[in-house]
């Protein structure tokens, strides 16, 4: 011990000078993980900034203008916003937008049900059924919309035909013209088209739950519902919230289907905000107004997803703590 103490200073110096490489390597090691972080982020960030954020900021700028497709833009301040909020159809549009977002709940219900069933061990031919579940999402939404127009045609379609012949309805329902039905029909068709998106994500999450958790739950006598609450739900909550958020956003942002089914009518009854955006941008060629509606759409979507977003952030934090 004594000798060690005595040697100590010289010893330290000796080694330091003998190993210059160790000191020189400092920046590399200190930053190596940092380097990885930025390198990994770079493509995503570059992509989002260039392709989404620049147009977005330009859009904010445009919303303060009268901005024709071809020609000189003209600064008009908040006039677009005043026009939009003052328009007769504004509240109709807001109402139907909120209603349309509910199709997410339907999608979730279908997807969760299907994923849970297909995660049961006793089901045979699983992979085939999973493939079948995917079908609605494996076709372009425009095509799915057209097919439903065909099936739902009030005078010629198969749905009305069977409903009538089974005595469920006594007169054809004019799905696309009836102001109430038109709202529900765009919602139902969207649900049918997009639920497999959630299904795939939920199934992947379900499959990652270790069997031991279920065994444990069973040992403690949990019934299926409690098993779902105690084991399944916590494990798929993150995936579920992410999928719900994405679907709300996409249901509201994607326009092809409702536009094709009803063109936003009758009147403004099915003119969800995205249809309004499209109308202003490409039918009216008024980009200032289109972006005004677009920004409102972003705001509305954000408000709708905010609760899920908070749940999601909490989930992630919990996961990190574990």
């Amino acid at each position, binding site marked *: 011990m004594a000798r060690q103490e005595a040697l100590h200073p010289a010893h330290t110096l000796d080694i330091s000078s003998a190993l210059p490489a160790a000191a020189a390597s400092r920046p590399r090691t200190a930053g190596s993980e940092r380097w990885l972080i930025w390198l990994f982020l770079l*493509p995503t960030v570059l992509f989002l900034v260039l392709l989404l954020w620049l147009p977005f900021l330009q859009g904010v700028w445009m919303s303060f203008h009268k901005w024709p497709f071809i020609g000189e833009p003209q600064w008009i301040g908040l006039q677009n916003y005043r026009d939009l909020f003052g328009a007769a159809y504004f509240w109709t549009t807001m109402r139907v937008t909120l209603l349309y977002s509910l199709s997410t709940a339907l999608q979730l219900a279908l997807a969760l049900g299907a994923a849970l*069933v297909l995660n*049961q061990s*006793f089901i045979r031919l699983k992979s085939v059924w999973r493939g079948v579940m995917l079908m609605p999402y494996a076709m372009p939404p425009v*095509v799915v919309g057209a097919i439903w127009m065909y099936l739902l045609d009030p005078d010629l379609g198969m749905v009305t035909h069977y409903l009538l012949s089974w005595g469920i309805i006594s007169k054809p329902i004019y799905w696309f013209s009836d102001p109430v039905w038109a709202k529900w029909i765009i919602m139902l068709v969207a649900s049918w088209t997009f639920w497999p998106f959630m299904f795939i994500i939920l199934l992947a999450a379900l499959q990652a739950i270790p*069997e031991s958790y279920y065994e444990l739950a069973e040992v403690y006598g949990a019934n299926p519902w409690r098993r779902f609450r105690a084991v399944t739900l916590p494990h798929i909550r993150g995936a579920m919230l992410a999928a719900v958020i994405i679907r709300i956003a996409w249901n509201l942002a994607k326009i*092809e289907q409702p536009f094709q089914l009803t063109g936003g009518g009758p009147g403004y009854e099915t003119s969800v905000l995205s249809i309004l955006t499209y109308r202003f941008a490409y039918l009216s060629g008024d980009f200032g107004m289109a972006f005004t509606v677009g920004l409102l759409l972003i705001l509305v979507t954000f408000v709708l997803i905010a609760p899920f977003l908070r749940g999601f952030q909490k989930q992630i934090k919990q996961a990190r703590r574990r």
Partner: protein
Amino acid sequence: MAMYTQRSTLTQKVLGYGGLAVVLLIVLIPYGYIALTAFKPAEEIFDVRWLPRAWSLDAWRYAIEFEQFHVYIYNSMIAGLGAAVLALCVAVPGAYVFGRKQFRGKDVMFYIIVMALLFPFVLLVVPFTILWVKIGLYDTMPGLWLAYQVFIIPFAIWILRAYFAELPPFLEECAMVYGCTAFKAFWRVMLPLAKPIITSLMFLAFLVGWNDFLFSNMLTTGEGPRTASVIIYVSAVGGERVEWDVLMVMTLMAGIPPVLLYIVAQGQFLKTFAVRGH
């Protein structure tokens, strides 16, 4: 395969198969009906009956011989695969960092990505088209791959981040102690662990490319790589009148490959392992 293998009671089986049947019917009735419609002659299109009185291949012949629809199916395949691969290269590293690393400004950056998800895509086509023509990506397959990422990357990062964050802690550190660089730890350990979700996401990304109409139509002409969804629209839906039989044929042709691909890709799922927990 992590799956609950408890002895199932009869009630559970009945409920399970009952549920499966309901969901299958919801999917299969419309799909089955249009599949059979694809074999109806034009006069029978609006006859409400399942089996055609006279089976007809006219629409098939038209779609394949004249429209060369199979060529566009091939284009869609390339478009979808490219979109999936590119998404993988961009989103997986990003999501990994968001899910498992700490750095300054992380939350802010993440919210920026969330916002990208909310953007009304339909307004992007103008700046995109102008930019794509300018940088020579117009009418090219890479141009389409890149454009599709607008849809894919935000959601891919979301879902992957949740998945990465919930993987067991310390795995990369462990790998690094045992001889990996930070990158190799990601590559050798985290990436294989995320395989189920990556497969799912690649598949969803593939479908984005496969199904997209907005960009596929805006960013190509007949001289470029048009995809099946554009051709369906141009050939069967884009006129004021719909060519129902042609539409049904093309729908079938476009709908089946992804389903088959998915069934095959599930080989990946079957190799799933208990990832979380010990």
